[in-house]
């Protein structure tokens, strides 16, 4: 009898130490593009790495070469499930197209959280910016700095994506609520060159334009270029979104008036933290806001 008890206790001890000590969980971070060359994803990766170090997680970072390469992201997730990850934090390139593979992941016991962009799989927690609130913050800045009733325009992102839709919605509502005359709401697909050409078209038709909200900084920088060429930059307030280093520099130089910072670092950090919680069988809330903050000349230096 004693013999059996000792065997059982040693087995328990052994398996216990295996679970607690040597078997660190492996979490996969899948972003929309490599951090090299994109400061936004670089800071998501930095947050994820810090969380991984703090919680003792094996972190695997894989991303498709560009956001449009949806099937590359699907293949990477598929391959990592085969390899045996314990949890996935993903910024879906196309929420609909990656949905089946994420369902597969969850069916084989691998928990998933979305970061940055919300997906469509049911019961999956979204960890990211509340873009409606963020865009409303930008609209508020325009309302505070431009006389009521002025002509204003909105450069929308890819309107097929929820991020694009939410920023369009938040800004449009906010600007109309304070009595602005919204003369144009046009998509420029997150792209600097398109932001520039769309702005050129807008100012041709609306010479009295007083403010532009660009749904991301790249389009905002394009808008600034167009306004500069038309000698209108002094009269027009441009507010971007994302607070990327180029935009922060532009705010410091007095060209862009303000931008909205997302805490991309938090997305990586909280993504890994919460994927780990799920992997350990804990439960987490459905929505985790990573927050936004207005960036003006006063605090822009922090974002360069």
């Amino acid at each position: 009898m004693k013999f059996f008890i000792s065997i059982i206790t040693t087995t328990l001890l052994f398996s216990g130490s295996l679970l607690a000590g040597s078997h660190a969980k492996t979490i996969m971070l899948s972003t929309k593009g490599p951090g090299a060359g994109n400061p936004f994803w670089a800071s998501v990766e930095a947050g994820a790495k810090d969380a991984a170090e703090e919680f003792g997680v094996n972190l695997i970072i894989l991303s498709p070469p560009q956001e449009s390469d949806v099937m590359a992201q699907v293949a990477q997730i598929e391959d990592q499930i085969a390899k045996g990850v314990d949890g996935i934090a993903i910024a879906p390139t196309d929420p609909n197209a990656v949905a089946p593979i994420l369902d597969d992941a969850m069916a084989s016991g691998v928990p998933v959280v979305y970061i940055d962009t919300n997906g469509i799989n049911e019961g999956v927690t979204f960890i990211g910016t509340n873009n409606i609130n963020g865009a409303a913050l930008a609209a508020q800045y325009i309302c505070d700095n431009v006389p009521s009733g002025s002509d204003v325009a909105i450069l929308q992102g890819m309107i097929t994506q929820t991020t694009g839709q939410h920023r369009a919605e938040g800004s449009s509502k906010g600007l109309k609520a304070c009595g602005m005359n919204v003369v144009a709401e046009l998509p420029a697909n997150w792209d600097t060159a398109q932001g520039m050409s769309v702005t050129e078209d807008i100012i041709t038709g609306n010479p009295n334009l007083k403010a532009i909200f660009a749904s991301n900084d790249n389009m905002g920088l394009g808008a600034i270029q167009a306004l500069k060429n038309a000698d209108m930059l002094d009269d027009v307030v441009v507010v971007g979104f994302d607070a990327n280093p180029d935009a922060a520099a532009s705010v410091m130089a007095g060209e862009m008036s303000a931008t909205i910072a997302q805490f991309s670092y938090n997305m990586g950090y909280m993504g890994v933290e919460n994927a780990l919680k799920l992997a350990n069988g804990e439960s987490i809330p459905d929505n985790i806001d990573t927050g936004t903050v207005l960036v003006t000349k006063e605090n822009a230096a922090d974002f360069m």
Partner: protein
Amino acid sequence: MDHGEKRLMDKNQETLFVRLIPFFERYGILLLILIMIAVLHLLQPDVFLSWRNVTNIFKQVSWQSMLALGVFMVIVTAGIDLSVGSIIMLSLMGLAIASKAGMPWYVVMLVAPAIGFLCGMFNGIGITLLRMPHPFIMTLGTLYIFRGIGNLISGGVPITGFAEQIRVIGNGKIKLDAFFGEGAREYIPTSLILMIVIFFIFWVFLNHTRIGKWIYAIGGNPGAARAAGINVDRILIVVYTLCGFLAGIGGLILAGRTNSAYPNAGLQSELDAIAAVIIGGASFFGGRGTVLGVFAGVMIMGILRNGLNLMNVSVFWQQVLIGSIIILAVYIDVLRRQLATRT
């Protein structure tokens, strides 16, 4: 050893070498695949050859292999088709709209290949009837046109949610309970079966039918083919139509895999298809290449990507490596041909 003896020895070595050339020409590429498999197995012993991972590779290459096979036939005629990535997207969108309109699943399934067929025929007719100076131009035009139409009919937004029957092609699993016992997790993807069947059909078509032989003849020497009484234009239309049709099948597979028709579907995948064909040993000047080679080219790219994903290698390196393999594969081919002409 006198000169005569030495020459004899050289000659013996040479003949052995010459005898090996056709062997390498036919199976060298398979040797490369075996080496890749061996290396990846050593690097990832628990994962790479696991059932799940191997089926993953086949699922990942299934839709691209359809594009590659179509582009291969076009390249054999010394042409090019840049529009296949857009055809896949347009056929996917057409399928999604038919599905949303409530058409029965067996009709919806036919929509994608049918759209592909029509797009391909449009390319073929344009190239021959409009006498475009090069297929590059016609299909570059339709690359934009087809994706534009796809965005127009869908409004540029993804359309999600297809019937299970439609998804079977791209997502179906053939259970292997009979071999592995009840409730086994091992399965064969339907898309793999489809891929094998289609590659076999096209192998027969290209090697054992008159039209197939004409396709090679056109690429080898169009003037001679015309002189021999082959209706070159008609064959070209057939080739481009089949290429579009295969892209449509690719769209059907993708519909199953993603359960979604999305605006970026197939973006730049024409380049992957061309790369696979070139790695597989087809000549850009037409007339040369095999269906087996295309299959090998597709597998090499699929295995490489999968292996690098398993080892968590950045996609930037994947791009560099795939580009290097294209150049290396063609360079080996150049060397081989040089040796072959010298002897």
